Structures are given as structure tokens and as C-alpha cells.
């Protein structure tokens, strides 16, 4: 059988206020060609100036991926003609900012070959009649992260990419929105078998995690079939066609004769001082460390912790609720259940983790039932407000008053002697019937645990009479 050898080239758009070599805004979604200047439009006479914020962001990424940061890195021009490439070349790095990183995912480890800064191109829109170009994206800072070909399965590739996205998000390096193109991935894949390895095939246009996994799986099937038929696998550049669910051969942007790299004469080498490197290494807590803390400090299960850290907003929510006094495990349940569901429905949450903490506290005190609390949360999600007041206004306040409920229990027992008899003769269903009657008498507001205790008490008392 054959083993897949997969390497990824990931492009991550950095979160910076301005572009890599000019002071144009990086805001997404502006009208076409409204965030451009002589530099990012490649006008004659324009010169690039390196943006320090982008350097710091790239350094953070290098530190987060455990890379070795090069004190001296150099810029180079990579040439190709394409309408969305305004200068006829892309400024990238030949001696990269960082090399030799490592990401440990427990079950497997991914080695990072290099990480470098480069500028994005504009965006082409292809219509049936013509191609339209918008240069707003031209010059937006990217880092390219190249892994060693150390991934073995499409699932591993996906897990790594998802984890990479989390790291970038946690460290505030990128928002990694695949749908907006701020995280893009190309993959290299070959098959290795007893007879040697196939040629390396590059797959582009993997613009979702799912697309990546499916494209790689497809390629493994396709190449295995070719090998089984005794055919060779051509070294080519493919693209994933989502609609057709297959890879197709792509005309390469690259010219015959290569990219003709030229050391960038407009930009001297980037020389980093220790202070800049040290600054970059002060990272916020990264996802794996957070997971360990959730398990260790909060006693969450591995599974819950994993889901929570995978969604940074929920994880933050969870921690804020705990900080506001909620017990960790119920808080995790609520956040992973109701809060996640409500966020998905309403797209935003008008209530605070403190609100949730109070609600959890009320359920634990028996002041509101779990079902009632869910209703309260729905109201909070809809229009916000004060949890206690909502409990009151919805009449959800749970009755936990012993005297009051004992009266209700006695009444239910007195009014249903048949059921009491059935219960005594061993029919469990009869108790549920009595509890239902009692709950109804309390207009559904009784604390169920307490009510059960008091109904049993009332049955016992009736017997003695």
C-alpha cells in the first residue's frame, strides 16, 4: 500500500492597520480600488517602506510556532505577469524571517520549514466578458508558513490547519477567515510506496477545511488508481473544483523560466535586534496551554476542554462566567449547550457571562428550574435584561418554601386516594402521577426535588392517620 506524504503552504493575512509597504488601510469590504496608493498600485516612482506592525505580527507567529527567528532576513522580488499583480512582481523574502518551527499536536507533530513575510496581490473577478481587478488587497501583509512534508493523512492536514488557525487567532495575529481569504492553503502531496515515491503534485484553491480534506482524499484515490494501473503521476499544479468534487489541472501563473527572483533593491535587509525578538516572544496563552489549564484548574473533561478552546469566544465566555462566580462544570455545560446554540441563532449575545453566572447560581439554589433558566436565557438573548427580573416577570420563580409545598403535597395526596393506594401496592407510575398533580397545584413552580420529598412525606403521613 501507499503512504501519503503531505506538506502544506499556508498563507495567513496579518491583522495590521496598514499594508505591508504603504499606509493604505487593510479594511475588508471597501469599494473596489478605494484603498490604494502609488505604492500598492505599482505607479512609476513609488517605493516600498516596511511596516513595523507587520514585522511584529510575523515575529509573534514565528514565536507561536516555535520557529528560530533569523536576525537578518532579506526581501526579494518574485516575478510573474498577472493583472492583479500591479508591479509585475511580488515582494517576498528569500532569506526568511524564521525557520525550523514545530507544532506538537499530541498524536503527531508538524515541523515548520520556514515562515516569511510577503505582500498579497489584488483580487480578480472573472466575468464571461472580461476580468475585473480590485487592488484593495494588493500589499496586504501575509505570512507564508511552509510545513515539511510530514503529514500523512488528510485528517492530520485538517487538524493541523485548524490548530494553526486557532494559534493565529489566540495570538491576535490574524482573524483567519477562510471565507474572506485571510487564511489560504495550498498542499503538496505525493504517494510513497515500496517502489519509491510519486512526483509531487501541488493542489491550490483549498479555501475551506472541508475542501482541503476532500481534495487530499481525492488525490490519494486518484494517484493510487494511477499507480495501480502502472501509470505515472505527473508533477503538476491542480486546483480543487468544489462543485465538480475533483481536482483539475490548472494553468500555472509561473512562467517557464521560473519566478526570476531578484534581491529587492528598494529594501535593505531586515535586521532585528534582541528587543524586537524578545517582544515577539511575549505571547498570550496559546490554545494547547489553555486546554491543559481548563482540565487542570477547572476539572473539565478532555472533550469539553477541546471543544471550548476550539471556539475562542466561547472559551472566553466560559472563563468570564467562572470569574463571575459560576461553578466551572455547570458553566461549561451551559456555555457549550445553550450559549453556543443561542449565539448560532442570534449571531450575537446581548447578555453577559455574569448574567449566566447568576442564572446558574439560581438553578443551584433551586430558585428556578433548569427548564425555566433556559427560558430566561432565551429572553436574555432576545432583548437582554436582568435575570432575576425575567424570572419574576415570566413567573418562573421556583417555590422552595417548605411550608407552602407541604400544603400542596398534602392536598395532592388527599385528593387522589386511589393513586396513593396504587403506590403502596408497588406501582411506581402512581408516584409520578401524584408528583404531576402536586406540580400542577403549584402552577409548575415547585422545586421538583423538594416537592418529591414532601409528597413522599405526605403519603407516609396519610398512612399513619
Amino acid at each position: 500500500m501507499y503512504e501519503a506524504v503531505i506538506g502544506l503552504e499556508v498563507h495567513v493575512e496579518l491583522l495590521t492597520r496598514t499594508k505591508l509597504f504603504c499606509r493604505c488601510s487593510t479594511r475588508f469590504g471597501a469599494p473596489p480600488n478605494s484603498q490604494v496608493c502609488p505604492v500598492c498600485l505599482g505607479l512609476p516612482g513609488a517605493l516600498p517602506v516596511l511596516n513595523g506592525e507587520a514585522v511584529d505580527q510575523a515575529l509573534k507567529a514565528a514565536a507561536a510556532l516555535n520557529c528560530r527567528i533569523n536576525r537578518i532576513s532579506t526581501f526579494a522580488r518574485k516575478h510573474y505577469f498577472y493583472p492583479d499583480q500591479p508591479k509585475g512582481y511580488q515582494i517576498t523574502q528569500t532569506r526568511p524571517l524564521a525557520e525550523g518551527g514545530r507544532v506538537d499536536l499530541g498524536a503527531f507533530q508538524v515541523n515548520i520549514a520556514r515562515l516569511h513575510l510577503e505582500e498579497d496581490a489584488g483580487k480578480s473577478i472573472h466575468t464571461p466578458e472580461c476580468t475585473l481587478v480590485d487592488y484593495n488587497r494588493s500589499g496586504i501583509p501575509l505570512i507564508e508558513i511552509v510545513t515539511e512534508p510530514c503529514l500523512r493523512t488528510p485528517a492530520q492536514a485538517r487538524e493541523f490547519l485548524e490548530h494553526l488557525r486557532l494559534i493565529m487567532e489566540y495570538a491576535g495575529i490574524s482573524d483567519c477567515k477562510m471565507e474572506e481569504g485571510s487564511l489560504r492553503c495550498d498542499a503538496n502531496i505525493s504517494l510513497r510506496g515500496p517502489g519509491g515515491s510519486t512526483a509531487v503534485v501541488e493542489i491550490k484553491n483549498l479555501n475551506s477545511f472541508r475542501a482541503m480534506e476532500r481534495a487530499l482524499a481525492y488525490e490519494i484515490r486518484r494517484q493510487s488508481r494511477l499507480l495501480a494501473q502502472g501509470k505515472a503521476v505527473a508533477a503538476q499544479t491542480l486546483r480543487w473544483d468544489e462543485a465538480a468534487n475533483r481536482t483539475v489541472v490548472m494553468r500555472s501563473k509561473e512562467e517557464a523560466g521560473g519566478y526570476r527572483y531578484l534581491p529587492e533593491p528598494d529594501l535593505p535587509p531586515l535586521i532585528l535586534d534582541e528587543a524586537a525578538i524578545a517582544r515577539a516572544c511575549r505571547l498570550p496563552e496559546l490554545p494547547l496551554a489553555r486546554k491543559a489549564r481548563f482540565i487542570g484548574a477547572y476539572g473539565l473533561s478532555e472533550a469539553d476542554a477541546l471543544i471550548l478552546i476550539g471556539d475562542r469566544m466561547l472559551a472566553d465566555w466560559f472563563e468570564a462566567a467562572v470569574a463571575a462566580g459560576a461553578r466551572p462544570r455547570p458553566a461549561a455545560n451551559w456555555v457549550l449547550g445553550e450559549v453556543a446554540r443561542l449565539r448560532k441563532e442570534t449571531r450575537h449575545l446581548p447578555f453577559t457571562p455574569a448574567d449566566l453566572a447568576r442564572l446558574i447560581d439560581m438553578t443551584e439554589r433551586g430558585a428556578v428550574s433548569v427548564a425555566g433558566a433556559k427560558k430566561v436565557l432565551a429572553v436574555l438573548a432576545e432583548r437582554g435584561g436582568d435575570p432575576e427580573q425575567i424570572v419574576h416577570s415570566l413567573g418562573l420563580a421556583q417555590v422552595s418554601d417548605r411550608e407552602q409545598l407541604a400544603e400542596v403535597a398534602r392536598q395532592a395526596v388527599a385528593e387522589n386516594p386511589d393513586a396513593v393506594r396504587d403506590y403502596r401496592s408497588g406501582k411506581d407510575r402512581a408516584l409520578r402521577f401524584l408528583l404531576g398533580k402536586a406540580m400542577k397545584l403549584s402552577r409548575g413552580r415547585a422545586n421538583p426535588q423538594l416537592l418529591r420529598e414532601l409528597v413522599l412525606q405526605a403519603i407516609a403521613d396519610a398512612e399513619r392517620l
Partner: protein
Amino acid sequence: MEITQEQVKKTAAMAKLRLSDEEIESLHRLLRELVARSAGISLPEEEASTAEPGEAAAAPAPFSRPQPGLRQEEVVALAPAAERGFIRVPRVMDHE
């Protein structure tokens, strides 16, 4: 190394230049000369210098707020063809 006319034509294709046959012929000679000259260079190995003498390090620009560049009307006015604020070119046949 022998340079062929094909290589001259390939270079013209890379440079996106349309050349006459006479030009290709004369460039053929010139490129041969260039390769010979380049191959003829023999210099003592340089000590591995990190940067050119006197060459400044790239000083990254301090963080700054975005500044207005060109307005869409200006960009469109410069362009030979535009449509709805986009620059228009003939349809690119293949994807990417």
C-alpha cells in the same frame, strides 16, 4: 553554454516582448556574449558579509494610522479601461 534561438524566444515570452526576427538574431549574439562574460568572472571568495558596507538596515516604519491614498476616481482615470470602479482587462481564460 550554447544559447539557442529557442532560448531567446523563451526569454522574450517571459519579458512579454514582441521581437522581430532580426532582433532575435542580434540578441542571440548578445546573450551568448553575456553568458560568456558571466562565466568568465573569477573573483576571490568573499568573506560572508551579512550586509553591504554602509548599507542601512531596513528600519521598519513606526506603526501608523491608515492614510488616504488615491481616490477610486483617480485610479479609474489612470486606467486604460475600467468598469464600476474595477480595472478591466480581457477575460483571463484559465482560472488563476
